[in-house]
């Protein structure tokens, strides 16, 4: 490993850092033949950056050379920046050495486009293949598929990777074309469909033959940039919904736009990245994936954008006061889940705990319910307190806002992500 590698590492890590996906979850690749590594199904963070993001995979670009000119990207062809390319061996050595020291869960590899999509994809696949076959490395690999690469290469990528992704980046096709003239929805959706079909096919196959090789066992994901275009939350969440349903994506990532090319007037001038909005989108995403909300309940024609001041669950409750108060000792799990301040875990504990005795406020507190919020929306085995119906929604909103520490609220989504892998 030469001095040059240090430089390449800096350039190509910096080039890849705006891709927010870092999840290493969803795969349970075992350690094979006493080799190196395995993939933990719940994913493990190994460090945290100063902005509080989890560092799990080593995110690198194979190269930051690119023949395309996407307006929102630091690596676009028209930028005058230092460019470099990793050799396959350099990448493999970095992954292995970092992995052995428990720095990382694995590799997230993306790339600028050199020559043409196939040429680029072929090199990416070679890195994954070398790791799996020559090094007997069983840690996590996430490959960002290159739109326009051949089906054969997509197929090979899926055989070595745990997860594949194709980034949509911009939520409407017109805006995409404006900002990324070399791209269109078709070039993104075709590989997405291919990957989806192969994953489904592979699941069937593995049902029949347990030893059939796996194809992208942790599924596929995508990323949407938020705030680079005027697309509203209703539009973004509906697109996400479609991606989850019809493309069977495992995750949609929302990435607050960070201005890297200030000179480009097609992009808005932002003072700071829209982090709060990004956070609200993640919360909304959780609501329809794990709390059984429909997208239309969260955003619709009357409320096309998420409320930045309060989280979408509270916002829904305040807009629908007639659904409350909910009787904790009688209501169904689904109904309890809709109470602000009660998460999935506490809701389940309520259902279990109330079999033995009627639950009181003190029990709820011990279970982990955030009473400061929940109390306006529930009835329990105690004297009736003032609920949303007596206080009126706008007052509840005011009280909660006053009591809320801004920092806590802001970091809700990150907490939730973290909770996924803390042991309970």
């Amino acid at each position, binding site marked *: *490993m030469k001095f040059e*590698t*240090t430089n390449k*590492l*800096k350039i190509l*890590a*910096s080039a890849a*850092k*705006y891709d927010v996906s870092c999840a290493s979850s969803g795969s349970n690749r*075992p*350690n094979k033949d*006493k*080799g*190196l*590594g395995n993939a*933990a199904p719940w994913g*493990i*963070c*190994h*460090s*945290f*950056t*100063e*902005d*509080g*993001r*989890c*560092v799990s995979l*080593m*995110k690198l670009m194979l190269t930051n050379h690119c023949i395309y000119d996407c307006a929102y990207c630091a690596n676009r062809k028209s930028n005058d920046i230092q460019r470099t390319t990793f050799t396959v061996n350099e990448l493999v050595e*970095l992954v292995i*050495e*970092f992995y*052995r*020291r*428990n*720095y990382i869960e694995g590799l997230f590899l993306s790339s600028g486009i050199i020559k043409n999509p196939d040429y680029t994809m072929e090199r990416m696949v070679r890195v994954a293949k070398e790791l799996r076959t020559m090094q*007997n490395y069983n840690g996590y690999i996430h490959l960002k598929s290159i739109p326009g690469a051949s089906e054969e290469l997509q197929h090979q990528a899926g055989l070595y990777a745990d997860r594949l992704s194709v980034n949509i980046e911009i939520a409407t096709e017109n805006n995409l074309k404006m900002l990324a003239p070399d791209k269109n929805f078709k070039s993104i959706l075709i590989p997405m469909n291919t990957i989806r079909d192969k994953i489904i096919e592979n699941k069937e196959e593995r049902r029949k033959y347990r030893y059939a090789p796996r194809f992208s066992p942790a599924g596929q994901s995508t990323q949407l940039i938020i705030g680079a275009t005027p697309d509203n939350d209703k539009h973004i969440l509906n697109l996400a919904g479609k991606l989850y349903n019809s493309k069977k994506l495992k995750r949609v990532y929302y990435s607050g736009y*960070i201005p890297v090319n200030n000179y480009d007037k097609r992009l808005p001038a932002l003072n*700071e*990245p829209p*982090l709060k909005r990004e956070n609200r989108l993640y919360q909304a995403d959780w609501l329809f994936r794990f709390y059984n909300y429909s997208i239309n309940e969260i955003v619709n024609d009357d409320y096309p954008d998420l409320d930045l001041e309060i989280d979408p669950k509270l916002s829904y409750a305040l807009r629908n006061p007639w659904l409350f108060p909910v009787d904790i000792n009688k209501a169904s799990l689904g109904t309890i889940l809709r109470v602000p301040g009660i998460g999935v875990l506490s809701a389940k*504990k309520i259902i*279990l*705990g109330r*079999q*033995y*005795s009627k*639950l009181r406020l003190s*029990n709820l507190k*011990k*279970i982990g319910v955030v009473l400061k919020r929940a109390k306006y929306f529930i009835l329990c085995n105690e004297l009736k307190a003032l609920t949303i119906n007596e206080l009126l929604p706008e007052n509840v909103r005011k009280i909660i806002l006053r009591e809320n520490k801004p*920092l806590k609220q802001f*970091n809700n989504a*990150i907490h939730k992500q*973290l909770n996924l*892998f*803390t*042991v*309970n």
Partner: protein
Amino acid sequence: MNLFIYDQTFEGLLTIIHDAIEMNIEPDKIISTKYFQDDLFATKYNISTDPYKFDKLWNKIKEKSNEQNCQRIFKAFLSELPDIEITIYDYIKLIIETPYNIEVNFSEDCVIKINNAQKKVGRESQRVLMFVRFQKTIDDIYYASFDPKYNVIPLTVSHFRNRFADQKWVIFDTRRKFGYYYDLENVREITIGKQKVSFESGKVNNDILHMSEKLFQKLWKSYYETINIKERKNIKVHMQFLPKRFWKYLPEKDFKSELILN
């Protein structure tokens, strides 16, 4: 006052709980030999550890509840929290005396306490999986120090054994002064002297460090610094997720904990 004394081991604790239940004597305090101070007015029960009694009680708990609940009790024990022993006694007694599953009855004090303790332990052992950093030595052993709040290294051994099956490794608890060594075949409990490793910094002495080790630490650190997005800087969250007490063994944090907050 009934004072029960055990030998610090989990087997020892279950042995005396077995006897207490058998003799129908309610312990007021259960204490390990390490913390025992003589109390003239207490009735003392000094019972020696008996694998047979341990098995008997352990199987009974398994039978009355489930494997997961046994794990929960063991984890709570590893918390080493003050008075966790008496809580474990209450919990086991409750399991044995109640006809239904008590593990979800959150209106019982000991159920909540056991759950909280095991959750803390679970979280700490998760952190070992996250923040352990191996340093490669000249004899190709990957060495890591850790300073866990609770006695959780035993819970992490199987993870590292599965994951790093093709490299020799050591994980050493610098607080409790013991660790585990995997020699490509078996995992053994070990102790090590201060000469080769500093318990304060967790670092392996330079003379036994592998030639390439410093380079990869440096590469990792520069990777870590590069991926930071300054527009998103949020030190409060950073500290919440990566509490300072872990920094001392992290190469990306330069093994020290001054730097920050300016």
